[in-house]
């Protein structure tokens, strides 16, 4: 559409950015024309969010430049980004739930009463908010509190909020992650209305079917580099998937050959949703069962249900041949299930406590006698685990908060290895840790399998799932959409299923 104009609305040229140990962006070029929806796709860690954070003034770039309307600009703060008409709608909403829709939309620029700067002009606020929502062609009451809205409506309020600030470039990060199909349609209508008025939209999503429907142009990022950038009409889904995956499997995932033993844990028609579809799978001794899916596809919910945190509406969990009702984490631990949570900071560790105290948190009964702790028993377990897992800490007494992400993750693992559960559920075990620590986590997963444990590996990083698992169950929108083993278990196949495609066809 905008190709006839001489300068793009936004041009990011040769952007590079490094974090300690990682080159997050390597000479990335990105152009955006008015009136287009430009999709930005890539695996986790490909550099999408770093690029967006640079655009939004959250990060500063190491080198490169940004041009708006052909003129170089310096976006060094979110405030400046908003001055240049750049708005980002994040995955996590930034709305105030108790305030009304109108108040939320106009929050950054409350209209004041003429002559009385400190007083809010409520009429102007309501009519301003209503105008924006009317322009978007949606019917949401401006006077209702935001918390009474559905997630999809809140999403639209986020967009409306961005529009209250004279936005020219709207970035949407996984906007449909929490939306139903009908709601996605509604959002797409809004996006079409916006671009028809000359706005440019950067659309970040893992869901390729949606990307192909809504965007005009698509850029693939991989390992911090632009792999391709072309009009969507010239691309096919399979090409995009190949470009996203790219690299070959390296020697990182050297899972030992383990003979698979008796079944340990089985789910039969497990219902995580009152109206959903049942989930079934089986995991055996010495087996690593991968559960793949995009963020929010239901795999984390499944893990939490197996651990007694999430409600189960039907179906059965069978542990070593016996049906089991796992009503609480305490019960889960008792029956021999361990859970490495996806977010170690919020749920995995007590950040204020030492390495030692975190490791023994799961085995306090074993290191105490009549309720009194034995510091020797504790020290024995802790020094074993620090050695086995090669946790890099100056002392067991070091506060866990002061360790690197990789070592913190090893402390989480140590805590569970101390319990020695039969089934280890691991959610995103390598999220946010460096390559070296990743390799060690993989080694530990292999070791658990060799010791006859059943491992459920849940991850949105497809190479890791494919590399480590004996069998992969793929989930999409809360359902199991396929099971892959052996030669058929490729990154392409997993990604195709996970993004809502079918298993057959290449």
């Amino acid at each position, binding site marked *: 559409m905008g190709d006839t104009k001489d300068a793009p609305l936004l041009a990011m040229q040769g952007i590079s950015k490094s974090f300690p140990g990682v080159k997050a962006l390597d000479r990335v070029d990105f152009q955006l024309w008015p009136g287009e929806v430009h999709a930005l796709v890539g695996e986790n860690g490909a550099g999408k969010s770093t690029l967006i954070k640079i655009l939004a003034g959250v990060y500063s770039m190491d080198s490169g430049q940004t041009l708006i309307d052909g003129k170089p600009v310096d976006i060094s703060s979110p405030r400046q980004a908003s001055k240049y008409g750049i708005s980002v709608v994040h995955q996590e909403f930034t709305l105030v739930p108790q305030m009304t829709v109108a108040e939320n939309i106009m929050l950054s620029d409350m209209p004041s009463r003429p002559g009385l700067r400190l007083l809010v002009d409520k009429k102007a606020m309501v009519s301003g908010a209503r105008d924006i929502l009317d322009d978007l062609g949606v019917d949401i009451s401006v006077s209702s509190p935001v918390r009474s809205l559905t997630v999809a409506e809140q999403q639209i309020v986020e967009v409306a909020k961005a529009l209250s600030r004279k936005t020219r470039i709207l970035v949407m990060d996984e906007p449909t992650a929490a939306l139903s199909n009908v709601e996605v349609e509604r959002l797409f209508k809004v996006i079409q209305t916006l671009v028809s008025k000359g706005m440019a939209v950067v659309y970040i999503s893992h869901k390729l079917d949606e990307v192909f429907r809504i965007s005009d142009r698509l850029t693939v990022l991989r390992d911090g580099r632009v792999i391709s950038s072309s009009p969507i009409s010239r691309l096919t889904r399979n090409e995009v998937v190949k470009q996203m995956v790219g690299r070959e499997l390296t020697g990182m995932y050297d899972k030992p050959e383990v003979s698979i033993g008796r079944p340990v844990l089985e789910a039969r028609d497990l219902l995580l949703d009152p109206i959903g579809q049942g989930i079934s799978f089986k995991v055996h001794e010495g087996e690593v069962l991968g559960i793949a899916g995009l963020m929010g596809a239901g795999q984390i919910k499944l893990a939490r249900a197996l651990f007694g945190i999430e409600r189960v509406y039907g179906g059965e969990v069978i542990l070593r041949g016996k049906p089991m009702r796992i009503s609480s984490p305490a019960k889960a631990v008792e029956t021999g299930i361990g859970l490495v949570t996806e977010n170690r900071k919020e749920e995995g560790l*007590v950040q204020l406590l030492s390495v030692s*105290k975190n490791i023994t948190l799961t085995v306090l009964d074993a290191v105490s006698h009549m309720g009194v*702790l034995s510091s020797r028993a504790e020290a024995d377990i802790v020094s074993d685990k620090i050695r086995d897992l090669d946790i890099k800490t100056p002392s067991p007494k070091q506060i866990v908060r002061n360790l690197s992400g990789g070592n913190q993750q090893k402390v989480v693992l140590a805590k569970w290895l101390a319990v020695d559960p039969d089934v280890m559920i691991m959610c995103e075990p390598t999220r946010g840790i460096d390559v070296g620590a990743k390799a060690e986590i993989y080694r530990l997963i292999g070791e658990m399998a060799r010791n006859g444990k059943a491992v459920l590996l849940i991850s949105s990083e497809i190479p890791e799932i494919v590399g480590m698992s004996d069998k992969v169950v793929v989930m999409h929108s809360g359902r199991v959409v396929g099971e892959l083993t052996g030669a058929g278990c490729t990154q392409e196949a997993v990604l195709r299923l996970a993004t809502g495609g079918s298993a057959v066809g290449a």
Partner: protein
Amino acid sequence: MEPKSFIDVLRRFGMAFILLAMIIALSFMNPRFFTISNFLTIMRQVAINGALAAGMTMVILTGGIDLSVGGTVALAGCFAAGALHATGNSWLAVLVALGVGLIIGSVNGFFVSYTKLPPFIVTLATLALARGFTLVYTEGRPLLVDAPLFDMIGGGFVAGIPVPVLIVAMVYIVVGFVLNQTKFGRLVYAIGGNEQACRLSGINVERNKMLVYMWCGFLAGLSSVILTSRLLSAQPTAGTGYELDAIAAVILGGTSLSGGEGGVRGTLVGAFIIGVLANGLNLLNVSPFYQDVAKGAVILAAVLMDKAFHSTADSR
């Protein structure tokens, strides 16, 4: 281990230095301050708040708060006096006081743990309930307590040390042991540091939180025994504002209001800061009207100084 620098020492013992400075300053300002008999007086005064603050420390370590302790002191005292009048058995009276404390603590613990109501609201309600029941029971009149056991607790000495001081010393030894050496104590810190992580480690968070509030209530009952013995009567308005002194002692002692960090040793220092201040102001003939002003100012100043120590230590 980390090297011990002056800053580390300040960080660990900051409040103790402040207490020491107060003692030195008051010694110079009034000759009657630095005497054994005055120190015994201070310790006797600190005993009541000290016992309350020990329980409060446990609650605050879990990230909670207990506003009901002052009301518990009053109700426990009056019921104990009532039991004494009815039976003449002073040991039974003591048990009644401790039992009332345990019951109120259990009620707090139950609502906080199992109904997930905020501790602030639950204990504000039980504070009002305890005060209300006290007034209903006593019809607003004080009850005399006249029994040798209470005489002994309030005014007696063992090896030259006042009995209340001995009791509170025991309390601190026991609570210190529980917090540092037992599984339950470890969980108190862990729950305050990250409740969800504890739950997901298979820990019964609810039961342990319930126990914490029971400890706090029990110690409030014990405080009430000491207070009743000192006054030789149970006052329906006893313990008014005690919850705030206890919380102040905990905070001065360096326990984080958000839980997970701190300990009972600091609380003891905090309780002494408040006690020494009150005693010093009395000796200096400061009008009681000004004493609260001074207390507020000292709390604010002490916490600010402590924060300054901490930030220097953190920014190394």
